[in-house]
């Protein structure tokens, strides 16, 4: 087949540049908006999703992780005594007040866990180790918040709610959805930092024994324990995500921006591909006049749109990678997992397909007698 689509596309370099800029812009816009939404959504439940627990014991009617109330640690023994429970550990995630040496204050989220167990540990440790936390005042903070918390070097001493806290290591990229950075420490230290009574905990994390039906275990625990809820990790994650994304309206705003990005993307791509088709309208009229069926012309336009989509997507995704990298170094959480990159490729093809259909409508209504008019 004579390469009409390819030649039409590459013949006018300026038009090609405009088309590709339009698609690239649309792809970057969609990546940033969807990535921001995904970043927000993931960040809200980062802590829950990384605990490696199967079930959570939480205070009654808790709407999200930051809102849970303390309860007696005696429940821990009831949990451990329940058949089907392999491991159960106390866990804390509560707000505290971080005092810098210069006298400034920052709100932090103190996360306390059993350092001898796998559940509830921080991940991406960039300096120091979990064992370093065994010292009575030891904490880990994240690299992203070193400046905010005033951390200049390891071993530096701060105060959390009046208790001495010494930074023994750092994590990397554990972003907090709220403005309060996570501070990881042992459960015991955390009890002190957040002024929790010695016989209290905020959560109990449960790992089920292999082969145990989680739903059955959840029902069994719910039957044994009073005044608490038993939630699966995915359930608690979903509740927390829904709270932050939809109840607060923060997620709705980002989601709307993402949808707006999609609409703007479709409009930009449609306009550019439509303009390219209009540039070659006379040629399509000639094709119709010499007997080309509409399907032949549709194929040319779809090929043009498809090639534009692939080239624009590649440029767009490469640009997006720079944007995502830049954002991750800064304060924004824009995520671009490969699944999203793949979905956006499909979306780009759909956008270009829609653009082609708009152009095709114009060509379908084209009067071949136009070839006799100059």
């Amino acid at each position, binding site marked *: 087949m004579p390469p009409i689509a390819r030649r039409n596309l590459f013949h006018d370099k300026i038009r090609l540049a405009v088309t590709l800029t339009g698609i690239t812009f649309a792809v970057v816009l969609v990546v940033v908006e969807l990535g921001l939404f995904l970043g927000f959504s993931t960040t809200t439940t980062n802590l829950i999703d990384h605990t490696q627990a199967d079930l959570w014991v939480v205070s009654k009617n808790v709407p999200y992780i930051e809102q849970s109330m303390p309860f007696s640690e005696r429940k821990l023994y009831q949990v451990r005594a329940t058949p089907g429970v392999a491991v159960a550990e106390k866990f804390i995630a509560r707000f505290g007040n971080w005092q810098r040496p210069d006298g400034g204050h920052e709100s932090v989220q103190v996360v306390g866990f059993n350092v001898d167990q796998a559940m509830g540990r921080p991940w991406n440790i960039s300096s120091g180790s979990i064992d370093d936390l065994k010292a009575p005042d030891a904490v880990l903070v994240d690299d992203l918040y070193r400046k905010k918390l005033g951390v200049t070097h390891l071993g530096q001493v701060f105060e959390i709610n009046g208790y001495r806290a010494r930074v023994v290591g750092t994590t990397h990229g554990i972003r907090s959805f709220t403005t309060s950075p996570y501070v990881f420490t042992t459960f015991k230290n955390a009890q002190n930092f957040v002024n929790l009574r010695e016989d209290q905990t905020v959560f109990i994390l449960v790992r089920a024994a292999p082969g145990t039906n989680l739903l059955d275990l959840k029902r069994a625990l719910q039957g044994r324990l009073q005044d608490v809820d038993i939630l699966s990790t995915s359930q608690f994650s979903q509740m927390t995500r829904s709270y932050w994304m939809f109840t607060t309206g923060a997620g709705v705003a980002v989601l709307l921006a993402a949808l707006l990005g999609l609409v703007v993307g479709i409009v930009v791509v449609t306009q550019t591909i439509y303009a390219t088709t209009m540039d070659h309208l006379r040629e399509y009229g000639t*094709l*119709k006049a*010499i*007997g*080309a*069926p509409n399907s032949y012309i549709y194929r040319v336009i779809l090929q043009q749109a498809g090639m534009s989509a692939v080239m624009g997507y590649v440029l767009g995704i490469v640009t997006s990678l720079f944007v995502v990298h830049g954002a991750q170094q800064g304060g924004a959480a824009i995520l671009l997992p490969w699944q999203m990159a793949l979905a956006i490729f499909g979306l780009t093809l759909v956008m270009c397909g829609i653009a082609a259909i708009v152009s095709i409508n114009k060509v379908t209504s084209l009067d071949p007698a136009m070839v*006799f008019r100059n």
Partner: protein
Amino acid sequence: MEAAIQVRGVGKRYAEGTSTVAALDNVDLDVYRGEVLLMMGPSGSGKTTLLSIMGCILRSTSGSVRIAGTEITGLSEQSLPGIRLRHVGFVFQAFNLFPTLTAEENVEVALELKGIRGAHARRIARDLLDQVHLADRCRAYPADLSGGQKQRVALARALAGDPEILLADEPTAALDSHTGRSVLELMQRLSHEQNRAVVIVTHDIRVADIGDRLVHLEDGKIASVERLRHEPATVQPGSLPVSESQPQLSFARAL
């Protein structure tokens, strides 16, 4: 002998506000293979409308049109491109070449529409360009060709698939008089030597000797039909193969 184009009582009316205007009124015309028919007349006389109807591009409001023996007035809209493809080649005033394709690719497009592809299509395209003496310019883009060369590429494209009818709308309007005449002489040879029905709409009375008949249109009606050549130039199909006719087309080299 059956006419390649048979027009009977054809009328064409256009809506203009609340009233209608007759662009053609009760036109009867036959065009035979091996014949060059010139159509002349003032602007708005209906020449291009009649040409469009004969090319199955426009539908008549009344009357009957037969193309290569097929009555087209009752055919569906979807059937008409197929009739154009099989039986009609077009030559346009503004050449209407695809600017992003080379000369041979322009011809290949028309061949592809007729189901001829690949190396076979390329061979035929080069052969057709050779017939119009553009073999050495087959890889040139339209922008690099002169007006006469462009029109010859358009002629080669019109000949792709070997249609029995060639319709040309003011094919010399964008050419100087010498080049224009040469293009018309080439079309005359293509008619006489390859037994095609050629209809040419023109304003230029100086090229009247190219035609076998001259039809004058006025106000949508045939005002007169003049026979310009007393000896019919028609030859029997197949009596003069393309290859035998090629030496006689040497004048085209000068275009």
